[in-house]
């Protein structure tokens, strides 16, 4: 039995690392007394599966965790009846800024988040003064047939093309800032927002980066890893 939860990572806690947040989750689940399944062996660990890592400092409205429940201890837990209570209880046990907004039961054999997520939507906030540059460069990137970049990994330089994984870019200007909404592909390798910013211009820096959605391509359309009808409130970043 596997649960999938969507949660936020907003505010001060965005400076936690992926690993830090994993430990926070382990403690919160123990306190919630949820019957989480454990790995076998010398050092049993709770069976938790995190989706795509979020860089330290980035915020998110759409993080996911899959939790395996121990079938022998799951007892009378019923998502229909207990799900909302669990959602509230976990949000309370998790630090400020980490709030669970939906919980679903996964069908058996549902593939892992890392396998099925195909793209993410990001909001990148820039100083208003950089707005025109970002807008112009966004158009240029979208018009380019390819965007060759080099990424160093384990000391080796690997060249790849950024363009196929830039799904869409939309610019919005506000009074004191400019926001770029970017959908970036994750397969075979996720494009990082920082790589997009570097491709836009080496001279600018995003003031804030926030993931607003993760997407699964599905029959020419896309859906979120939890059905959108589970949402308990309308979220506006």
């Amino acid at each position, binding site marked *: 039995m596997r649960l999938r939860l969507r949660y936020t990572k907003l505010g001060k806690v965005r400076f936690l690392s992926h690993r830090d947040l994993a430990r926070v989750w382990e403690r919160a689940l123990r306190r919630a007394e949820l019957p989480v399944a454990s790995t076998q062996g*010398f050092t049993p660990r709770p069976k938790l599966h995190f989706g795509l890592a979020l860089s330290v400092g980035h915020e998110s409205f759409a993080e996911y965790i899959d939790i395996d429940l121990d079938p022998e201890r799951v007892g009378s837990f019923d998502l229909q009846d207990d799900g909302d209570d669990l959602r509230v209880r976990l949000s309370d046990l998790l630090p*400020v800024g980490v709030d669970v907004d939906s919980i679903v039961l996964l069908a058996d054999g549902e593939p892992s988040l890392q396998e099925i997520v195909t793209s993410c939507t990001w909001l990148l906030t820039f100083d208003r003064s950089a707005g025109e540059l970002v807008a112009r460069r966004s158009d240029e990137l979208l018009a380019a047939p390819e965007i060759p970049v080099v990424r160093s990994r384990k000391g080796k330089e690997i060249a790849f093309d950024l363009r196929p994984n830039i799904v869409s870019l939309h610019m919005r200007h506000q009074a004191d800032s400019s926001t770029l909404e970017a959908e970036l592909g994750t397969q075979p390798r996720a494009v990082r927002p920082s790589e997009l910013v570097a491709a836009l211009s080496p001279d600018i820096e995003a003031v804030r980066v926030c993931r607003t959605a993760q997407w699964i391509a599905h029959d020419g359309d896309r859906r979120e890893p939890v059905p959108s009808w589970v949402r308990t409130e309308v979220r506006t970043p």
Partner: protein
Amino acid sequence: MQGQGRSAATLADAMTSIWPQLEPLLNRVERPARYIGCEDGCVVPPHDPAHVAWLLVYPDAYEVGLPNQGLQILYEILNERDDAEAERAYAPWTDLEGLLRQHGLPLFSVDTHRPATEFDVIAFNLSAELVYTNVLNCIDLAGIAVRSAERGEGDALVLAGGHCTYNPEPLADFVDAFVLGDGEEVVGEINAVLARHRNPATGVTARPDVLADLARIDGVYVPALYEARFEDGALVGIAPTHPDAPATVEKRTIVDLAEFPYPRRQLVPLTEVVHDRLNVEVFRGCTRGCRFCQAGMITRPVRERPFDQVRDMVVEGLARTGYDEVALTSLSTADFSGVDRLVGEIMASPAASDRVSVSLPSLRVDAFTVKVAADIQKGRRTGLTFAPEAGTWRLRQVINKLIREEDLYSAVDAAFSQGWRRVKLYFLVGLPTETDEDTLGIAELAANCVAIGQRHQRGASVTVSVGGFVPKPFTPFQWFGQNTVAELQRKVNLLRDATRRMRGVQLKWHDPRATLVEGIMSRGDRRLGAVIESVWRRGGTFQEWSERFSLDLWLEAMAEAGLSVDWYAHRHRHEDEVFPWDHLSAGLHRDFLWQDWRDALDEVGLEDCRWTPCYDCGACTGYGLEHRVASAVPPAGGSQGTGQDLSSGAAVPVTLLARPATVAVPAGGPT
């Protein structure tokens, strides 16, 4: 509680906070989670102008400072008062420090990111000598002058507590008042003085009056009210210059730990820290009498926490924090009365379920202890640590660590047979009377332990960890001249050569150069203030960190100040040496310490006075206190230090002792 924290956080954010300026900088530093606070247990006190505002600072990195229990205890006690509020700060790492200075931002609390400039008191925990330059750096980052004499009306008061305050003289120029001993009670008395002198608009005023009133509190030492006199380059005395300052400052001792079940809400950090687990203090003080151990001398007498309270604190703490590990802390936890029954009850409690492990830091070296450890470490059995401290029985009698070889071997045999794969052994080199035979005895013990282990497991290994001995104030070894860096290194090299070809033995050692600086500070006087300031001004912060430590900075500063390293660190002291801490008291009679030093040189061991007649060290009799222990007899199977039960540890008595009422140790003359 969490819900309250949220609304309170919003409220506090609207008040003074440097978070908006800090936030963009955190994208540019390593491990930014060090600076966000948000821990479970974090208090967001309402900023009330009528409160005395305390900033409690651990002068090292967050991951080292956060677990400090002393700081957390005071944090809770102060925040429970209705005339005080307390927040926490840790030394910002060098990358953030640079950015703070570049942007003109001060040290800040992690609780509400309130600038240090808004606090009435900046109080430091001093746990190690090598953090002294960080203390200066934090005072400077708080926007006030580092030297007390240059601070004025409206500036925060700088206080310090912790074990290093038993020789506070090296920091006498920088800290306004030091607190000796247990802080639980005295912190309230200090707060009352500050509240009396505090004006809601301008903060604590009339500094000279405040300092004089602080000096009247038992356990508080105000160095500015004392004059240190030197003749021919040596200290000849430290005496009060103010009528309110006592000639001798006595340490504070809380009588009953049961009255202070703190921390009630231990902080649970969101990012990784050292000792990241629930910690419950089971007793304070130790009378094993290890002669090198300052903690054991200055925290006497032994005061056990009641059995039921320990169990409740563990069970409630596990449920509240979600931790899967709890440490029962003290200077020798296996000596806690009924420790095996305690861990049995903890393991059987629903809060522990099957996932929780209990750890006992500072294991006693005997098979009984290993049995207890085996009962509680169901899962991971990676490493077990023992501290024989010296390589031969002769030297262990000198230091009064009365572990026989068979005790160690039976403990190690029990450990490997119970499934542990690695045993770690702690030793000191540079101990008084140490010969090369003693040093090489360490290698021999290690080799024998590996051989014992290999009877049970082919991959059995022993890690030998060697530290250089630093003589400390208020110990029998305070008269001893510390080994030089070259001598310590030579001993380490002897061991390195001896263990090089030993299969299964790994040797690790502490940098003898850092040991030297600790030694200078440990028994140093006020003149070292100039040295600390000079090292700090040249960027010598985070000296506890090997990648940041620089002996050259210290040696240059000593030379500049015209001070001799030899005189401070390596010189043997005469019986009537005037120590820089002679005007302070940990309750120990100087003639007891001197006699113990003579006994050490005569290789005479002393039994633990919890279960034998009193030696009149002074810690109980001087303060009208008694040991508070639940058991009138020494713990089963333990020979270490007691001398009473020398039956071989391999046969572990498992019958439990009933818990009698608190037993008073008769206060008599020395035996």
